[in-house]
């Protein structure tokens, strides 16, 4: 049984006439201690998926269909009181920009102790001890002094460490990190990623890493899931997806990495833009930008198939596999 399993999840935005669909029929599973990356362009719905898991969608967003199960417990029907018990305790979150994530008028210590005391009966001094211990754990120097400081007195990297420490306070089962290094200095990025990876590995915490950066993915995640226009288009082991991307969108993304272009050449890019929510193409959502698009791509969205490398939703892959199938049958006849 998976730690977290999401089935047929749809997220919509309430509108006066017809609700806009932001996540289409998303299914995924996460094992205990597994590190999963969710990759895609801005607006692909990756952050939305992260927020949907902890039921923190901003209005007018809401979960329209599907189920989210944590340890076989259905989450979508929980009361707000029950949600409060899950957030922070079972599923912790790390936000994108550490400069605006911590409350500016409360000290680091206050924000840590309140997180502990919201979930466990423990006196202030013990909570403080635990908080300082976790600050030391994320390698913050002089943790006892940091405890009394305010967010503005810490650097961005330091704040993100504090946020990671807060995520660890209650020994959660899952940490959802939404672009945890995007707002940081490049030199700090690697440190924070390494810390995150190690901490998850040491404590057996499962990690969902939301990012648009394949460089980040390759360093951290065992499994990768590629999203486009609110849909999952490909998922599989990270190394294999990077070495042999199947879906034309994944290929495009990887090809767009700066190191893929030759020196002096223009950087590669995927032509066109992601479709807006109120103007989604019929059929495969990627077909207007896809170099391999055929007629059937414009009519009916493809189903998931296993390509031998990853699970992917694309007719081109389907056709290719079918082309091989008769051959293998003939082989079998011989």
């Amino acid at each position, binding site marked *: 049984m998976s730690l977290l399993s999401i089935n047929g999840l749809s997220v919509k935005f309430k509108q006066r006439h017809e609700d806009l669909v932001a996540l289409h029929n998303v299914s995924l599973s996460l094992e205990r201690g597994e590190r999963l990356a969710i990759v895609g362009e801005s607006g692909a719905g990756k952050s939305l998926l992260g927020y949907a898991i*902890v039921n*923190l969608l*901003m209005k007018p967003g809401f979960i329209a269909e599907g189920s989210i199960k944590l340890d076989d417990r259905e989450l979508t029907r929980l009361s*707000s009181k029950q*949600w*409060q*018990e*899950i*957030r*922070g*305790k079972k599923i*912790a*979150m790390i*936000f994108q*920009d550490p400069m*605006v*994530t*911590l*409350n*500016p*008028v*409360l*000290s680091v210590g206050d924000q840590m102790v*309140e*997180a502990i005391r*919201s*979930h466990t009966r423990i006196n202030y001094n013990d909570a403080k001890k635990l908080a300082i211990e976790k600050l030391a754990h994320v390698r913050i120097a002089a943790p006892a002094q940091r405890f009394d400081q*305010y967010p*503005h007195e810490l650097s961005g990297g330091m704040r993100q460490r504090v*946020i990671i420490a*807060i995520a660890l306070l209650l020994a959660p089962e899952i940490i959802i990190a939404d672009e945890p290094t995007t707002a940081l200095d490049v030199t700090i990025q690697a440190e924070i990623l390494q810390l995150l990876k190690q901490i998850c590995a040491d404590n057996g915490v499962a990690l969902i890493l939301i990012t648009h950066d394949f460089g980040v993915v390759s360093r951290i995640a065992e499994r990768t899931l590629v999203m486009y226009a609110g849909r999952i288009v490909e998922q599989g082991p990270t190394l294999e997806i990077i070495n042999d991307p199947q879906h034309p969108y994944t290929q495009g993304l990887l090809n767009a990495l700066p190191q893929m272009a030759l020196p002096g050449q223009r950087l590669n890019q995927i032509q066109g833009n992601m479709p807006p929510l109120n103007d989604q193409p019929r059929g495969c959502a990627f077909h207007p930008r896809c170099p391999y698009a055929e007629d059937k791509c414009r009519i009916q969205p493809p189903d998931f198939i296993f390509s031998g490398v990853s699970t992917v939703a694309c007719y081109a892959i389907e056709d290719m596999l079918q082309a091989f199938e008769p051959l293998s049958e003939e082989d079998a006849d011989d």
Partner: protein
Amino acid sequence: MLSFIGRRLLQAMFVLLIISFVSFMIQDKMGDPVRQMVGLSVTLEQREALQQELGLNDPMLIQYGRFLGRAIQGDLGTSYYYKEPTIDVIASRLPATLELSFAALVLVVLLAIPLGVFAAIHPKNILSRAVLLFSTLGLSVPIFIVAVFLMYFFAIEWGLLPSFGRGETTSVFGLWQSGLFNRDGLQHLLLPSLSLAFVLTPIFIRLIRAEMMDVLQSDYIRYAWAKGISAPRIYFIHALKNTMLPVITVGGIQLGTLVAYTILTESIFQWPGMGLLFMDAVTRVDVPLISTYLIFVGVIFVVTNTLVDVVYSLVNPRVRIPGYS
């Protein structure tokens, strides 16, 4: 902290210097003091001799210096009407005004914070809309109408509350005549402070609501939800503390409005405070009293704004006063 207070004192002194100059100009230019003193039945020569004797023919700056010298010694002139030092006259009226303003302020805080927070958390609730409507009403109706209405219903129609004066007062340490410690004084306080609160609360409700709605959209509030913090703690600790920052600043500025409204309220309810005194002084052209009142209000402004800065720095750690922590 000390250097902060020192700097504030310097600023305050500068502000007071300007106010004293304006106040001096009023004394100097409003009416003819010689005529006030001796009337019309004096010859021109005598008049000029008196002018010379009083130093009224000296250059303005020298006269101002003399005025300042006396002011520093606590002598701001003698009231024409009361024949007493103006400072004493105003000091005897100060408790009434301070108590009225304080009571109004307490009412404003008690009303504006819960209503503003509620309207921000539940913007679509029918009660929030009612609060907003009420606040528009409060903003657009002038205080003398509110006061007269309150007086009409509570004092005249229903006979529940007294309509004028301060009622019974008790002496506190022989220095302060207070109406806060007996039933009659409190009853007298209710209508005037309610009128003041009625016109001052709406702007704070609106401000708190708008600011809080903004704060509730911020990342750190979303993060607080993600930590599994309880809703009351998120609203009243995480959000309200941030909401109050601009509210404190505006509160300090609104002090001017409070002073202006206090003058009106005191006149309507015949509340024996500084505002009523000022109105009377204006009608009697009691120039020394008018200018002393101005200086007094200036002092109150400077003191309160300094307090506001200190409170602000206590709420917002990012403006911690250097050397204080």
